[in-house]
């Protein structure tokens, strides 16, 4: 689901934030976000959003780093990270396809769209193909009911999709 967040405020440039031992610059940016929130424990979800944006997914080391920085019990960080659908603890595919399964999309045949992609790409909803090229996800209503069924392809919302049109679009990614 992270792919649909495209326009969030970018973390500010890190003036004087401390360097992570790995030298990875992304930690500097994560540090800046935490600093902006004064390392308050209640900023946990905001910090996880930023971490996922920077790193693509929430690896265990990253969660431990966040837990230590915000001084929050590790079990609480893990509990929060697994409660919300947005957060992914596994790497995503190169491309993502999110099919909206809200009511409007459902009555207009979104389930058939999912099945068509599953069959074509040999992947189950919620999973990534073996070659890491495609992650197929479903969403609980994107609020684009007016153009149902809606499908988000690599972050771009498209409307009025059919099994045929979507498989045409996704096929290109798998080659």
């Amino acid at each position: 689901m992270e792919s649909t967040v495209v326009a969030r405020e970018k973390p500010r440039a890190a003036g004087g934030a401390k360097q992570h031992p790995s030298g990875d610059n992304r930690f500097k940016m994560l540090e800046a976000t935490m600093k902006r929130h004064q390392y308050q424990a209640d900023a946990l979800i905001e910090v996880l959003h930023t971490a996922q944006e920077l790193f693509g997914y929430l690896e265990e080391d990253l969660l431990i780093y966040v837990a230590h920085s915000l001084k929050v019990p590790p079990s609480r960080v893990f509990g929060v990270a697994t409660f919300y659908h947005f957060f992914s603890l596994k790497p995503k595919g190169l491309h993502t396809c999110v099919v909206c399964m809200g009511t409007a999309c459902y009555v207009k045949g979104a389930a058939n769209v999912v099945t068509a992609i599953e069959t074509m790409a040999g992947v189950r909803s919620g999973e990534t193909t073996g070659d890491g090229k495609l992650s197929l996800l479903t969403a609980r209503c994107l609020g684009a009911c007016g153009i149902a069924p809606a499908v988000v392809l690599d972050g771009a919302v498209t409307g009025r999709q059919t099994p045929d049109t979507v498989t045409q679009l996704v096929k290109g990614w798998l080659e």
Partner: protein
Amino acid sequence: MELSDLQDIARKERESQKPIRVRCCTAAGCLSSQGQAVKSALDEAVAANGLEDRVQVIGVGCMGLCSEGPLVQVDPAGTLYERVEPRQCASIVAALDGGDADANVGDTTRPFFTRQVAVVLENSGRIDPERIESYIAADGYHALHTVLHDMTPAQVVETIIAAGLRGRGGAGYPTGLKWATVAKTEADRKFVVVNADEGDPGAFMDRSVLESDPHRILEGMAIAAYAVGASQGYVYVRGEYPLAISRLQTAIRQARRMGLLGTQVFESPFNFRVDIRIGAGAFVCGEETALIRSIEGHRGVPRPRPPYPAASGLFGCPTLINNVETYANIAPILRKGAEWFASIGTEKSKGTKVFALAGKITNTGLIEVPMGTPLRTIVEEMGGGVPDGGTVKAVQTGGPSGGCIPQSALDTPVDYESLAQVGSIMGSGGMIVMDEQDNMVEVARFFMEFCMDESCGKCVPCRAGTVQIHRLLTKIRDRRATDEDLATLRTLCEMVKQTSLCGLGQSAPNPVLSTLRYFPEDYRALIGAPSEPSANGAAPRTA
């Protein structure tokens, strides 16, 4: 910033308007069908014809008729173009001074438009949501000025009580009373929170308001904060709404720069800061105690009430939580008066309600109608009925917490009490039309799957009960169920409704109970040998 400054901005904005304005919808629905390309093409065509002095192209918020998007409307002529393609833009510009364009012209006299009464959506599709000046020119922030300089907090609360506004999040609690409770509670710190976690599948009103008119929410929040004595506000918005988030961020930045948020708003002693909190994909966070937990950085798990958030909410402080649409009604009420607002709608449900029309209906999109408008008017007249001559089987309102209203009850007026009477709820305003091809057992199963996946897992009836209801519905769908299973389903639904901790669990059985009540034949048809009448007295169908 003083009143004269505000009026100056409004005047300059109006004066800078060019004689011809081309409004182009840039809300999420139209954007996803090439709306941005259409706007660029219009810009290019205007430049190519050297019309920049006379013509301006404005990106506006939602114009409502999403099914015909991208939409472009030309002022002052009022011509509406539907399903505009970028290649048609040159001809639309060429026809600005008369003549016909090579594009579909929409009929603005059809009931979809004429039956609407715009209060919440008065600026949607008219102003540029990314420019604060555009909102100020539409009388924006004037109500806030009046409130801060000419009214006491108690007077503001009284006005909202007198207007009879009720919560638009679904439950319909009187907004003024909620404000009064928070105002009366003594505390050093208080908060106002906007619930923009519009989780009901099939509802996109809040998203549209945030994308089309974000300043209206900020103004409503600021007025509420002044009335209850808060100095910090949070907007809790779904992560699925990136455009709404970015427009809200822009709006907060602009308002802060102009001194309409921050310290000493309008040179008064009132301070108000607003922050955004982005949800991370959990429907249950629409429940107010779960939402509070989520803002505090925890798992979004509800807790028993009392204490209510008005007494002990965010960080243990008194907290006012209202829905987006509720806040959107505040500025107009203060601008035009409680009496004006109370004159719209019915005896017990005042004002208008925005609905998101979707499903098997010709005109999908957003509409705003006075409370009390019959469902039939909305679905058949405004929505244009089921496409291709199909018939309406049911109208689903209230999302996974609501119910399916059968065709025979289409004359029900939409107000809180009437909808409850037919076994559904107002909800946040999603309205999904279903036709004869939709099997109600499938529909109930769809909603139950949703509730099962979205249950937080805290209380047993919701966590384990929804799983078993879903299994029973699957059994019925697969024709493996017996009469005994149907009886168990009823008892279980009743139990989950009565014993669950929060609204999610308490309302999760509603789609099943309402379909059992109105469409028993859909269930019976799937159950092997009908042996005795179902509990609601319907005769068994003979095979």
